[in-house]
């Protein structure tokens, strides 16, 4: 049995291929075409695993680009996929915080990774990867550099939730001579507060996992832990849990049909 799960996000496309006893994963930037990104991921997965396209029995696709990808056997929401993926890695997790490029989600899960409840950010970019990306640009950094550059000891609070206003706030703060590290710590705190409020509203049950591209940033993890007052687990493959979940759901469907 061979299945593929793909998660086409707004920033990166991730994939997992599972064959009996073996798995490979791949990730590329989504770029402007989610359809092409999905195809490229499949090609990379096949190459890495040494398998042929016609050997793949099921392809499940999730993420914002899921509808653009026409070779999918089924599309599933990110919410269900992250829940399934995380349950595989950490069965004791009951709350998942997922922050991607475009949205942030909090998912409450049951014993087998089933979704019990979920909450999603409103329309705007506050509390998402995109928010951090815009701010990194204003600070002359790459978004990947933010985590190591923060200095919580010199915290400069960012009060605006609006991406555009927060950007002006940063420019003003820099102009007043405040340290970059403190401003970055303030940004992380801002994202942490926003997402923690959403999580508290839904109800936080331990243990808590943090997934999605933003989970790579240790500063946001630190801020989240402070805000919700509990330790958070970041899976080693935190960007891949959606793709893993999609692949596992495909695998389970096949097994059920056998």
């Amino acid at each position: 049995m061979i299945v593929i799960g793909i998660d086409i996000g707004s920033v990166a496309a991730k994939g997992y291929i599972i064959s009996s006893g073996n798995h490979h994963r791949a990730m590329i930037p989504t770029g402007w075409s989610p359809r092409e990104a999905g195809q490229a991921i499949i090609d990379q997965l096949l190459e890495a695993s040494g398998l042929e396209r016609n050997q793949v029995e099921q392809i499940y696709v999730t993420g914002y680009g899921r509808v653009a990808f026409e070779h999918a056997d089924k599309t599933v929401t990110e919410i269900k996929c992250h829940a399934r993926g995380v349950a595989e890695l950490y069965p004791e997790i009951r709350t998942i915080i997922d922050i991607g490029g475009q949205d942030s989600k909090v998912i409450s899960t049951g014993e087998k990774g089933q979704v019990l409840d979920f909450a999603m950010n409103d329309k705007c970019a506050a509390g998402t990867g995109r928010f951090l990306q815009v701010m990194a640009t204003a600070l002359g950094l790459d978004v990947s550099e933010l985590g190591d550059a923060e200095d919580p000891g010199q915290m400069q609070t960012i009060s605006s939730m609006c991406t555009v206003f927060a950007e002006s706030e940063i420019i003003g703060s820099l102009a007043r001579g405040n340290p970059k590290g403190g401003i970055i710590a303030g940004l992380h705190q801002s994202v942490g507060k926003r997402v923690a409020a959403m999580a508290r509203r839904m109800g936080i049950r331990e243990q808590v996992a943090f997934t999605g591209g933003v989970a790579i940033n240790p500063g946001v993890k630190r801020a989240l832990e402070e805000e919700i007052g509990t330790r958070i687990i970041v899976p080693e493959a935190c960007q891949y849990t959606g793709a893993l979940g999609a692949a596992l759901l495909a695998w389970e469907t096949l097994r059920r049909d056998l």
Partner: protein
Amino acid sequence: MLDEFMQGFASAREVNLLRIKEAKENGRKVVGIYCTYCPQELILAAGAIPVGLCGMSENPIAAAEETLPRNLCPLIKSSYGFAATDTCPFFHFSDLIVGETTCDGKKKMFEIMQDLKPVHVMQLPHLNNTEASFELWVEEVRCLKKRLEKELQVTISDQDIWRAVEVINQEKQAIKAMFDLNRADPPPLSGMEMLTAAWSRSFSSDKGELIDNLNGLVREVANQTNNRQVKAPRVLLTGCPVGLGTEKVIRLSEELGAYIVAMENCSGYKTLELQTATNGADPIVALAEKYMAIPCSCMSPNPYRLKLIDNMIDDFRVDAVIDLTWQACHTYNIEAFEVGKLVKSKGLPYLHLESDYSNSDLESLKVRIEAMLEMVEK
């Protein structure tokens, strides 16, 4: 045959527009209404045509924002925008507009609307279980009667009101019978069909014809075999008013594979179990009693809405509940907390959506609705 009925309902707005134009030319009066709290019986008793006014389109919102704040519910902005730009023919033909103080936004908007047309505002009490509040409301219903008599230059007799009560009671029964069809599994009507039929009634200039059409639809459905074989999650929609033009959540849900089997909204089931008692001495008191019982979130507290949703979940064998709040509608938005508790206590998924009339959030709505439906699938 079902399609023919549905087409009839779908074209009701246009057909009735022409009829109302004609009626106006022949000297009949038209009274525009916005809300289920308006006792239409009095308008019928006055020999005038009650007609629902436009407020379900995004188009006139930009114009409304020249006057009203941006951070206001889309329904108020749309209603005012239609009036201000004279793009709602029903508003255009109305001799009098009746408004109610269901929320702060509406009551202040009606003050501004007075510059465009005569507007009569009924002051609603915020609690519906005390003698004082009931007396206030009876007085407000009497005031409306007097205003109609003055504005339309007629005298309304008790006899006229009792006759109108009879008609509206029948109309309610007919609509309820239509909604109740969807207690069946699979449901014979889609959410869009229910909405179309229910919505058509607000434009209908001939109540007798409307009742016949609704009864005809119910008979037709009883006679035909249900060809919906697919097993799909049965969803109940509650929250703010939804009409044709603002049906995006119903449409998306059905596109994503759900059946919207029941609607507890203003134009849905909310008022359908409320009949005016016909055995009293004073028809105004009888009307006041019925309208005061409407479980709108503007009432505080509002336990009957929760009871109604609870019963509907069982009666319509619902798998999940979607609660739709239009942006800045504080009462429904806050009441969502209690609705959510109720739905979750029954072990069902509950999805609270906050949106407006635009299409800007279609993608994010889709993800949420789809994820909720996946929870039902298990």
